């Protein structure tokens, strides 16, 4: 089963929920793959503490032109949907950072003047968790090169890296655009983590619209549920969205988090909470 943990708003507790679920399910003996798809700011590794066993570069294909063969027909520029290719009267100029690596220019070149080379966008990291009592938890995550705009190919590489397992957990980036969609697409279930504030509700609504556009089943987790207002509950009732878990504003969770510890690791009662959450997802 593939469960994606997403949110519109950042800082609602996606990583807290993802690592809490990963830790609990792995301690119960399940083989868990945790995929941290927030490649701009990955941080699940701080909690899962993996022993790095693999670091590999990830690239996207970009075209190169053989000036000897090129006839300056302009077809490469015409078929490029991303305006990454300019055909000048005597040469072709390529803007690598705009290229999405779709290969259309290479495919359509009538004289086979174009070939592809790899442009590095970041690295893929893999490692097994070193947490006590956990030996079937694998973490995969990407680190996007600073300044790189092309996050989606790296997110896809993280998704592809998942090994055989019982449960795949995807820690998605915040927002509702391409990187989030690349992270949650193909999941069996999406958990949306929010907080009971006007800001949390507004971004939850955006995230619900996104998940519904992808036609995936979803439910909500309300984090810091004992603060703020009740508007998130009203919204979920009106929209027929299940709230599968409410995590109270518990100072002990914040303390564990501040030391880089998973709540369920130091507060055993939360292990049952995450177990119930998993069963709730499976049954819905």
């Amino acid at each position, binding site marked *: 089963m593939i469960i994606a943990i997403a949110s519109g708003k950042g800082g609602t507790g996606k990583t807290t929920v993802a690592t809490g679920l990963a830790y609990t399910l792995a301690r119960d003996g399940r083989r868990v793959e945790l995929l941290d798809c927030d490649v701009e700011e990955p941080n699940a590794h701080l909690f899962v503490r993996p022993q790095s066993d693999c670091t590999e570069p990830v690239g996207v294909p970009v075209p190169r032109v053989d000036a000897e063969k090129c006839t300056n027909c302009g077809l490469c520029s015409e078929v490029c949907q991303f305006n990454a290719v300019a055909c000048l009267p005597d040469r072709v100029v390529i803007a690598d950072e*705009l290229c999405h690596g779709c290969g259309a220019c290479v495919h359509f070149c009538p004289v086979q003047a174009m070939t592809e080379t790899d442009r590095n966008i970041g690295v893929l990291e893999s490692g097994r968790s070193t947490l006590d009592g956990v030996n079937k938890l694998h973490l995969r995550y990407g680190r996007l090169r600073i300044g790189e705009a092309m996050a989606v190919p790296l997110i896809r590489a993280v998704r592809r890296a998942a090994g055989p397992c019982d449960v795949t957990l995807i820690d998605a980036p915040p927002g509702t655009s391409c990187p989030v969609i690349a992270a949650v697409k193909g999941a069996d279930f999406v958990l949306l983590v929010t907080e009971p504030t006007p800001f949390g509700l507004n971004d939850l609504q955006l995230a619900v619209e996104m998940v519904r556009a992808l036609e995936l089943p979803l439910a909500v987790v309300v984090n810091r549920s004992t603060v703020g207002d009740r508007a998130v509950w009203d919204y979920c009732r009106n929209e027929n969205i299940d709230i599968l878990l409410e995590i109270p504003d518990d100072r002990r969770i914040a303390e564990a988090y501040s030391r880089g510890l998973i709540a369920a690791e130091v507060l055993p009662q939360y292990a049952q909470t995450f177990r119930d959450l998993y069963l709730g997802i499976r049954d819905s």
Partner: protein
Amino acid sequence: MKIVITADGTDLDAQVDPRFGRARYFLLVDTEDESVTAHDNKQNLNAAQGAGIQAGQNVAGLGAEAVVTGNVGPRAFGVLQSAGIKIYLAGGGTAREALEQFKAGSLQEVGAANKPGHWM
């Protein structure tokens, strides 16, 4: 020689458009007889990305030897430079004023982009 002036209208009385890649029109002007043809840049005006690159390609295709505009980003600059087209910055005013300044040699040629691109 033929030059392109970016403008918000189709003749020399139009204002110089301060943007290059997303200029409203390219006025192709013959500096000898001041004849003008206007080329719509609507396609790049609405482009999600890469407007400067396509605009540079289109200007090169028009056979211009120089561009007079308000600002130029890094990729447009790169394409224009590759095409051997010189770039001059005009502070504002009408296309006619910019043309006079160009002919009088009072516009500064730029050797680098003066604006960052959208992705930088």
